[in-house]
């Protein structure tokens, strides 16, 4: 329905183009991997499929952050938590799928429970042997956390950096909790050694291809969803809340609900991204909750251009591809390059790569001038509370 709304409004051709590209990649890459012989010039090695599958998940994650940060102005420094929760929900399903094939051969208990002497499955592992349940939990768990967290935080009018920092505290606390072996999620090692998903071996080329396609599809749907929201009246409302939250109250809106909806939707998107990510990389562990990971998501989004739709996608892919390439190409110096890139983007592409590109060159110059202007105007408010909505 939302899409219908979007179509009524006329699909932005950039959106159409990016949807087409994403879906084309989603089909072409696995196909080129599976059906073309290794010697063929267009053959895509499995390594690349695995790599890009991961990037697509990151892209969806960045897009989900963009929904709350770019549109509603909520700088979440804890989005990795939703991603990781989605990942864990999927990981639990995959663990249950191992069945008796674990090293200790226990038909029910995952290996880590066996050697920690657990005698039976903790209640929160129930149901995860069913894919549908796991799939539901992939969305429900992050969504619920976001709902509870957001419900309190937004109603209490926690804004700006205060909100950012408590999201960071949230993911940090979750990280510490999941590190604990007693929590029943495998402690530091997390969940690994997956065998199959829906009966197909996770290592099989065709499964890989299917997961790749699923990630591309999820990303495409994510783009469609965000684009549709952005084009709706709610999209305007989100921006209004971002720019002048207090003002929206006086014309009768409840910014807390505006935020809550976006936050929950975004958490669900992040959860889905995490769920698709886990079978492709083969491990989920508490490191995904690390605050630094969440900051990286922000960085991808900013590099690509927040508030745009393709920006975060491009940012996520570009930064991660750069990281993949540089960590192999210049293992001792890649941090200089990556760090330099971040500084350069902030200085020379103030709206991120896509944001600046969309403004075009003329726009770029206008922007420099406007920035000059803005610099003074907006920091009247920027003093003690950097992200003050108003």
């Amino acid at each position: 329905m939302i899409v219908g709304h979007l179509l009524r409004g006329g699909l932005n051709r950039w959106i159409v183009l990016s949807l087409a590209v994403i879906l084309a990649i989603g089909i072409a890459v696995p196909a080129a991997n599976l059906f073309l012989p290794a010697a063929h010039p267009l053959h895509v090695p499995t390594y690349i499929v695995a790599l890009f599958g991961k990037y697509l998940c990151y892209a969806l994650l960045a897009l989900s952050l963009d929904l709350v940060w770019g549109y509603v102005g909520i700088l979440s420094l804890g989005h990795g938590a939703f991603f990781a929760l989605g990942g864990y929900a999927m990981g639990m399903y995959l663990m249950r799928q191992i069945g008796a094939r674990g090293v200790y051969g226990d038909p029910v208990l995952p290996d880590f429970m066996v050697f920690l002497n657990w005698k039976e499955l903790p209640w929160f592992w129930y149901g995860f042997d069913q894919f549908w349940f796991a799939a539901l939990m992939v969305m429900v768990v992050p969504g619920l956390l976001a709902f509870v967290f957001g419900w309190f935080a937004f109603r209490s009018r926690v804004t700006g950096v205060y909100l950012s920092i408590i999201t960071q505290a949230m993911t940090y606390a979750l990280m510490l909790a999941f590190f604990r072996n007693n929590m029943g999620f495998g402690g530091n090692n997390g969940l690994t050694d997956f065998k199959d998903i829906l009966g197909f071996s996770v290592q099989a080329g065709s499964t890989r291809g299917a997961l790749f396609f699923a990630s591309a599809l999820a990303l495409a749907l994510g783009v469609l969803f965000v684009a549709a929201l952005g084009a709706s009246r709610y999209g305007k409302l989100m921006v209004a809340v971002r720019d002048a939250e207090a003002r929206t109250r006086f014309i009768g809106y409840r910014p807390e609900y505006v935020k809550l909806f976006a936050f929950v939707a975004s958490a669900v998107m992040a959860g889905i991204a995490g769920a698709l990510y886990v079978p492709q990389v083969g491990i989920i562990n508490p490191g995904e909750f690390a605050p630094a990971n969440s900051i990286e998501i922000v960085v991808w989004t900013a590099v690509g251009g927040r508030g745009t739709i393709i920006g975060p996608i491009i940012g996520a892919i570009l930064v991660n591809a750069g990281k993949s390439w540089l960590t192999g190409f210049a293992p001792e110096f890649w941090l200089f390059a990556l760090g330099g890139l971040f500084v350069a983007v902030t200085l020379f592409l103030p709206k991120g790569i896509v944001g600046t590109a969309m403004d075009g060159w003329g726009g770029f110059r206008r922007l420099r001038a406007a920035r000059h202007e803005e610099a003074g105007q907006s920091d009247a408010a920027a003093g003690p509370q950097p992200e003050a909505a108003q």
Partner: protein
Amino acid sequence: MEKAPQHAVGSEAETKESLRKETILYLDGVSVSFDGFKAINNLSFLLQKGEMRAIIGPNGAGKTTMMDIITGKTRPDEGEVFFDGDIDLTKHDEPAIATMGIGRKFQKPTVFEGHTVEDNLALALSGSRSIFASIFHHRDEEEEARITGILETIRLYPLRETSAANLSHGQKQWLEIGMLLAQDPKVLLVDEPVAGMTDAETEETARLLRDIARDHSVVVVEHDMGFVRDLGVKVTCLHEGSVLSEGSIDHVSSDPKVVEVYLGR
């Protein structure tokens, strides 16, 4: 507020209540203080349905604070605030009060700088405020027409595609008035609408407000006495958080206390 035994004031309380029923805004014995500083001091203020009232008073008299109280931004320390006879405003928050039909223009113009002029109005346009409604909302022709109408009234039609951030100070004032119109509230609280406007625009604004007042209740705060005179309505002068003088413009402006603290010689 009343501390006297109930039976003795029974009738008084009753008259008070019937009095209240008539009003659209009813403030009684309202006080508020900030860190010990009494900004509003036992203020009582009534606005009848359909009435337009001008409020004047020295800088710092508490005019803006009074609007803050009515719109739920500031909670009074004590006193009663009622809307439409029997809605206790102190029990509601800003969005609730706004949806009940109290609209406000701020002293310092505040608009959505990330949006175009037109979108600012579209957001303010009356209608459901629920999230899901807003997701599936589709702007129809009637709304289109209303927006165009308002754009013309506030003379920003040529600038409708301009980002509100790029408006001049006065243009923002107008846009805010426009948003208030779009909201179509029962009561309009207008804080210094003509500050930064030319004389001609001031006259225009007075005309506009008189128009609105035909089927709305309005409270206007202004320092421009010419403008207040133009409005031709009852005037209340606040001072140090309570009413100093009330009546026709001639009555109030000749009140020596008002001259002393406000108009100057």
